């Protein structure tokens, strides 16, 4: 994978900074919205993303199924991401990569930083599409040592699909959500053999794929079982678990993958003037996806509860774009 930025994605377009719509996040949501806006005739649309290449999470989901709804094809995450980027570029969307939005100001004024320096982007409307990530070990307050080998699915995927690196050989996988299934697939691809899959509840969160996967991959699934301690000061060497009867035992492993328990990437909102639902950590929006400052909108996995697959985020991006078009044309009813 080539990490060098492509010239056309760099921030030179930012200099002239009056935009109709600025979108934060070049994942499926942001790219879908941007493409839709251009198709609807909105002239000046820019997508800002802090990564070196666009595409969001699918860039490192090296497995199918992506794109069924959008492109009527079964694709892997990376090719799906490339396809989304291609559509956006063809539609005339401006992409500014390596551009981090550092704060949200009143009336669509964004502070940004890129390798060229600090700056400001002003737009009539802003769409927040910063997505969601998994909850790290610290927030789960899991006891034990803090050695190497503890990560989320996202990190595991990036290491394997973007960098061809293996973080461990025999991890324990925690959780039974859809993304946990991704974790198993990713391990399989890299020749990693998980030694166990653990679920605190008495049954798997998503049953069909998990039971199926466990069967295919030969990974023992332990229900009603949770980690009570991670052992290994420098690197994980075992976990202590407690099963449904309260019996405790050790599982030898060299890593722990904490999957799922998604949390929206809403820190920009939290630090801003926009209202945040403190319970769900999502921005508060009206029926159009509009935030407490009406120049801001939010969509995609930043908003979805529970999180959705890429296709659903893509649709939401398109829908929200249509609302923004109406808004810019002063056709949106006020709430």
């Amino acid at each position, binding site marked *: 994978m080539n990490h060098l930025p492509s010239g056309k994605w760099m921030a030179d377009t930012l200099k002239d900074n009056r935009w109709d719509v600025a979108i934060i996040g070049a994942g499926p949501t942001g790219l879908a919205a941007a493409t839709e806006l251009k198709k609807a005739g909105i002239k000046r649309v820019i997508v800002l993303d*802090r990564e*070196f290449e666009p595409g969001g999470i699918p860039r*490192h989901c090296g497995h199918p199924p992506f794109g069924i709804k959008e492109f009527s094809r079964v694709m892997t995450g990376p090719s799906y991401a490339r396809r989304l980027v291609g559509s956006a570029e063809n539609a005339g969307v401006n992409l500014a990569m*390596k551009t*981090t939005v*550092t704060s949200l100001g009143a009336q669509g004024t964004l502070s940004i*930083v890129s*390798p*060229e*320096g*600090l700056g400001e982007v002003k737009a009539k409307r802003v769409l927040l599409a910063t997505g969601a*990530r*998994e909850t*790290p*070990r*610290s*927030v789960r*307050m*899991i*006891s*034990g*040592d*803090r050695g*190497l080998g503890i*990560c*989320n699915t*996202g*990190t595991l995927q*990036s*290491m*394997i699909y*973007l*960098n*061809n*690196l*293996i*973080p*461990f*050989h025999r991890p324990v996988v925690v959780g039974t959500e859809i993304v946990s299934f991704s974790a198993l697939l990713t391990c399989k*691809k*890299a*020749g990693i053999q998980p030694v166990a899959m653990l679920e605190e509840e008495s049954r798997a969160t998503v049953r069909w794929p998990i039971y199926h996967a466990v069967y295919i991959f030969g990974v023992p699934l332990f229900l009603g079982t949770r980690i*009570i*301690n*991670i052992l290994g*000061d*420098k*690197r994980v060497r075992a976990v202590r678990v407690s099963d449904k009867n309260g019996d405790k035992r050790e599982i030898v492993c*060299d890593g722990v993958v904490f999957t799922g328990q998604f*949390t929206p990437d809403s*820190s920009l909102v*939290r*630090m801003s003037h926009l209202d945040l639902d*403190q319970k769900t*950590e999502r921005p508060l929006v009206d029926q159009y996806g509009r935030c407490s400052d009406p120049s801001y909108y939010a969509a995609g996995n930043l908003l979805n509860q529970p999180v959705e697959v890429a296709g659903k985020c893509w649709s939401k991006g398109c829908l929200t774009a249509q609302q923004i078009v109406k808004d810019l044309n002063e056709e949106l009813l006020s709430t």
Partner: protein
Amino acid sequence: MNAAHYNENSRPHDDRISTASLLAEGDIAIIGGGVVGCAVARRMTLEGASVVLIEKAADILDGASKGNSAILHTGFDAPVGTLEWECVQKGYEEYLEIRKSLNLPLLKSGALVAAWTEEEEERFTDIIKKGHENGVKDLLLLSRSEVLDLEPNLSENIRAAIAVPGEYVIDPWSAPLAYLLQALENGGQAFFNAGVRGGDFDGAYWLLNTPRGKVKARYVINCAGLYGDILDRDVLGATEFNIKPRKGQFVVFDKAAHKLVRSIILPVPTERTKGIVLFPTIFGNLMVGPTAEEQEARGDSSVAKEILSELHAQAVQKLPALTDIPVTATYAGIRPATERKEYRIIEDSARNWITLGGIRSTGLTAALGIARHVHSLLSNQDVEFKAIENPIVPHVPNLAEHLPRDYETPGYGEIICHCEMVTRREIHSALTAKVPAASLAGLKRRTRATMGRCQGFYCSARLAELTRGKFDEPLAVGEVDG
């Protein structure tokens, strides 16, 4: 005695030593690269000694100094008239004096000793009296409403507080790094993966055994922190104290909490511990901790869910708005406590050995003062060096949130850690610096990478790639075939 003089004197002994096994020699060997060892290395180098620091880990700060509260203490509550108090005061003053030139940050937070019960409030007179005896004259008694004016987000249950305006927050890792760097820039040497296992003293020189070879020196300073007693036993044959490791766990809150409180909120201290503190960090977070838990293991800095939850609950009780703030990280540090409260600074002048033991809970502040104390102990033994004129003053990179960060200067390449805004340029310098990061933990301490809200979700893969081949314990253990 200067370096040249020393070299002549040392010649006869060289015959005895197999040169192949000699790793280094100097006037003074410092065992341990915690904050104390780094400060002593700096001081003695500046005083003109040739210094060799030997550390058993791959990097500095592998013991007590890796996880502390980072408060620069005034010493208002230190035991009156003790050596600890003196070192804290001197360390505090020197830090303020040298910090700008070394580019070390200071968060002028001030502290409030908060009373939540009547009994706690009753102890205020004693605390103020002790503060005054300790030379901290600017303590101020604040009524409930005055406290709430100053810190409106504190719980209504607050009764009163003593303001200690001079308690500040610093960067716990850049400070020792700067001290050691200054030693090295001015001729000192440092060796890692070189734990001292034994040694011999022939009446004039020490030969210390390390897995990397022998280190020859006239004087030895034991700065082995959590292992200080073991080192004395292994090399001197006996120890006057026993380390009683005392763990302190912490919970770090999201940066959104930083604006909720400006001061360090101290509890009314007890005899045993400074208690649970709520305090801002130099990196723009808010933290609660540390606990004080006796344990056997010196290297066990594991965290425990129940304790973390308890800390979290205590923090929320004092600052109710924290209910809505996510947790960012949890960790623990271990104090090198002993069976006694005071520092265990022990001189074996017959054997040219000084032990700096039991630097328990004030070492970050006191280190520079302790280093001066070491110099004066040596001077009292008529060990004279000629202080360096115009020493080189290195700059360490700034990591403080309230000061300009690297990403604010163009040309940084790329932001690697998005939560803490760490650039590729910063990662690169940390990996290639004079004292390079030798582990992920060391890289964190030098850059803040992976310390933020996502705890490495977005950047670990990129870090694994950038640090390939650099660490003994690599982030990646292999490559994907094909």
